[in-house]
C-alpha cells in the first residue's frame, strides 16, 4: 500500500522512522521513548485522523488513515495510535467531539456487551481492551433494550485489570460499574453491534499486513547476510522457497486488507459486501500471520528468538493482533453462516460482486 503521493502516510512514516526505531525500542530499558513519539504523532494530527475538524480532528480521509495503519504495522508500532483513531472515528459517528489524548475502544471482543442502564450509566465488562491502561478516555458502544449508543468515558471511572498480549502490549479488562459517561449519543441508524468490530478488524488486518511486509524484508536481508555451510543461506533452495511462501502470505494479507479498507472507504454503509471484505481480511491476515511469522523465525534461527533481536516486535504483534476485534475462528463461523443462509447459488455472485 506504500503510496508516495499520500502525504498523511509519509508524515507518519517519517515519525515512525525518527522516534519509533525498533532497534532503539528493543534496547530501551524503560518507556522513555513513548512520550516524544506520542507528542510528535499528536502534533501531526495523526491520532485524530478520522475525526472531522469540527470535532477536534484533522479530518483525513478513511483511505489516508488506513494507509497510516498499514505503515504503523510495518513499524511494529506499540502505542495506541490505531486505538485512538478508531475511538475518534467511533465518537464522530455520533457527533461527539474527541479529547486530545490517547483513547481506546470497547468492547473489543464479539461476545462482550456494555449495557446502557435506564439511569444513563454504563455497566459490563470488556476484556482484552487494547492499551486501556495507557489511555485517559474510552469510546464505548453500549446497548439498551432497544437502542445502541456511543459514549465517551473517563478511563479513571472504570476498573482496569491490567493484562498483556503476547507482544507485551497492554491488553486489559475494563469493568464498567454504573459509569457515568462524559458524553453519550444514539448511534446512527446504520450502525450496529458489529460495525466497530469490523472497522477494528480491518485496522488490525492492515497492521498485520504491514508487520508481514517487514518480516519479509528483515528475513530476506538476513538470508542474504548469514553464511552457513560456506554460503549465504539465501542460496539454499529450501530457504528460498520458504521465503517465497512468506512473500505469498504477505501479499495475500496486503491484498485482503487493502481491498477491505478500500471497500469501507467507498461504502455508504456496512452491507454484506463490506462484511465479506472486512471479515475475509481479518481471517486471511490472521492465517498469514501464523504462517508468515513461523517462516520469518525459521529463517532467522536462534538469533530471532532472542529478546534483543527486533524480529519479535513484528511476529508477536502480528500474532497478538489476530485476537483483537474478533479472531479468525469467530469471523469464519459468522461468514460461513452468512454464506449458508444466502444459499449455494448465491456464493459466486457474492464473491464476484467485489
Amino acid at each position, binding site marked *: 500500500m*506504500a503510496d508516495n503521493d499520500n502525504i498523511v502516510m509519509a508524515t507518519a512514516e517519517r515519525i515512525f522512522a525518527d522516534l519509533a526505531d525498533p532497534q532503539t525500542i528493543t534496547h530501551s530499558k524503560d518507556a522513555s521513548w513513548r512520550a516524544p513519539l506520542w507528542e510528535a504523532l499528536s502534533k501531526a494530527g495523526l491520532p485524530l485522523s478520522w475525526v472531522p475538524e469540527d470535532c477536534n480532528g484533522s479530518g483525513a480521509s478513511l483511505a489516508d488513515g488506513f494507509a497510516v495503519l498499514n505503515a504503523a504495522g*510495518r513499524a511494529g508500532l506499540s502505542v495506541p495510535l490505531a486505538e485512538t483513531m478508531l475511538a475518534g472515528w467511533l465518537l464522530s459517528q455520533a457527533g461527539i467531539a474527541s479529547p486530545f489524548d490517547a483513547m481506546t475502544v470497547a468492547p473489543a471482543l464479539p461476545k462482550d456487551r456494555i449495557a446502557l442502564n435506564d439511569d444513563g450509566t454504563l455497566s459490563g465488562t470488556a476484556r482484552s481492551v487494547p492499551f486501556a491502561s495507557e489511555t485517559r478516555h474510552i469510546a464505548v458502544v453500549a446497548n439498551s433494550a432497544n437502542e445502541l449508543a456511543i459514549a465517551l468515558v473517563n478511563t479513571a471511572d472504570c476498573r482496569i485489570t491490567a493484562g498483556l498480549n503476547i507482544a507485551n502490549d497492554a491488553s486489559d479488562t475494563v469493568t464498567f460499574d454504573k459509569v457515568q459517561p462524559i458524553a453519550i449519543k444514539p448511534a446512527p441508524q446504520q450502525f450496529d453491534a458489529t460495525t466497530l468490530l469490523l472497522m477494528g478488524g480491518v485496522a488490525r488486518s492492515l497492521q498485520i499486513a504491514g508487520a508481514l*511486509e517487514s518480516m*519479509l*524484508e528483515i528475513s*530476506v536481508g538476513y*538470508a*542474504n547476510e548469514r553464511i552457513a555451510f560456506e554460503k549465504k543461506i*539465501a*542460496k539454499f*533452495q529450501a*530457504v*528460498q*522457497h520458504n*521465503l*517465497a*511462501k512468506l*512473500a*505469498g502470505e*504477505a*501479499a*495475500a494479507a*496486503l*491484498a*485482503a486488507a*487493502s*481491498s477491505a*479498507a*478500500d*471497500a469501507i472507504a467507498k461504502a455508504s454503509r456496512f452491507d454484506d459486501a463490506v462484511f*465479506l*471484505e472486512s*471479515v*475475509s*481480511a481479518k*481471517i*486471511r491476515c490472521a*492465517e498469514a500471520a501464523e504462517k508468515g511469522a513461523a517462516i520469518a523465525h525459521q529463517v532467522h534461527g536462534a538469533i530471532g528468538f532472542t529478546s534483543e533481536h527486533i524480529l519479535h516486535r513484528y511476529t508477536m504483534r502480528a500474532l497478538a493482533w489476530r485476537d483483537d476485534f474478533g479472531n*479468525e*475462528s469467530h*469471523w*469464519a*463461523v*459468522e*461468514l*460461513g*453462516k452468512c*454464506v*449458508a*443462509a444466502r*444459499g*449455494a*447459488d448465491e*456464493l*459466486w455472485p457474492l*464473491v*464476484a460482486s*467485489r
Partner: protein
Amino acid sequence: MTAALRFDPIRLPPECEALRKDVRAFLAEEVAAGTFDPHRPQREGNDARGFSRRVGAHGWLGMTWPKQYGGHERSFLERYVVTEEMRVANAPTRHFFVADRQSGPVLLKYAPEHIKMDILPRICRGEVCFSIGMSEPNSGSDLFAAKTKATKTDGGWLINGSKIWTSSAHVADYMIAIFRTSPSTKENRRHGLTQFLVDMKTPGIAVNPIKQITGQAEFNEVVFTDAFVPDDHVLGEIDGAWKQATSELAYERSGPERFLETYYVLTELVRAVGPNPDTRAAEGIGRLVAQLHTMRRMSVSVAGMLQAGKEPVVEASIVKDIGTVWEQQLPHRVRDLAAFVDVDPSNHATLAEQLAFATKLAPKLTIQGGTTEVLRGIIARGLGLR
C-alpha cells in the same frame, strides 16, 4: 520494500457488470440446450467446437486484441469477467481457451502480418484450437533442455523429435512450440531455442493421446518426423525464444482459472450443509470463502496491472502458487467438512461424484503451466535471493 508486493485494490469497472449478465444469460441458454452440465465437470460436454463458435460470435474471444485482427479492443478486466464466469459454470472452453489466453497474444507480438491477418480473426470467431509444445520426454520444468530439433532446409525447417503432455494436441489446428535450432552455449544455456507456429495438418506429425488418472485423455505425445515448417512460421528471434517466454507467463499464471478449477465442490458443500450449518461446517466454509475472496482480489489486481501495460511476472507467480495449492487442497477440505453432513441431502450423489473427480484431478494443478517449485524460484529471484 519490494515491488512484488503491490496488489492495489483494483475494482471491475461498471461496464463489466452488464457484460457479466450477458455471459450468465448465454451460459444458461447453453445449459438449457444441453451443451454442458454445470454440475458435472467430469463430463466433457457434447459440443466444444460449436460452443467455441458461439462464444466467438458474442465477441468474447480476442477481446483485448486490435480490431484489425478481429479483436474487440476491450479491457483485460472485461476479459477477466468472461473467463471467470465460464470457469465457475464449468463451460467447455477447451477448444478456444489456449488460443485466446496465450497463443493469440504470442502471434500478435511475433508473427508476420499475413499470418496475423489469417489466423487471429479465426481465433476470434472461435474456429481454431491451439496447443502449446513445451515439455518433452526428458525436459519438463527444465524448458531449456528441450532437444526436439528444427533443421534448416530450403524455405523452412524440418522438425524431428517429440513433445509430451501437450494438452488438446489431438484436436488442435495449430501448435506453438519451441524447438532447438542451435546448441546451447557455455555462457547461456538458454540459448538455441526458437519459437515456431506449427500447422497440425503438416505431414510427419503423429499425435498419440495419453490416458490420465481422471479417465480423460486430454494430453498427448506428439511425434515429429521430418515435419516441414515454413520460414514465415518462425515466431520472433531465432535461437532467442528464452527472451520471449517470460512476458507471456503473466497472462498464463494469474487468471481466475488458477484457483477456480475445483470451485464446484465448494458450491456443492454449501448446498449439502443447508441454511443452518453446525459450527464446524460454518467455520470451514467461512475460511474457504475468505481465502477464495482474497485470491480473486489478488488476481483482479494483476489483471489491472496487465491493463496498465505492466508485466507483473512475480505477482502473477504468487497468484498461481497460492491459487493452485488452494484449489488442489479444496476437495480434501470439502471432504473433511462434508464428513458429518446429513446422510441424505438431495445433492449427496452430485457432491460425491464431484469430490471423486476433483480429488483425481487435483495433483496436476500444481504441475501444469509451471510447477510450484518453478514458481517459488521465480518469486525468490524477484525477492533478490538468487
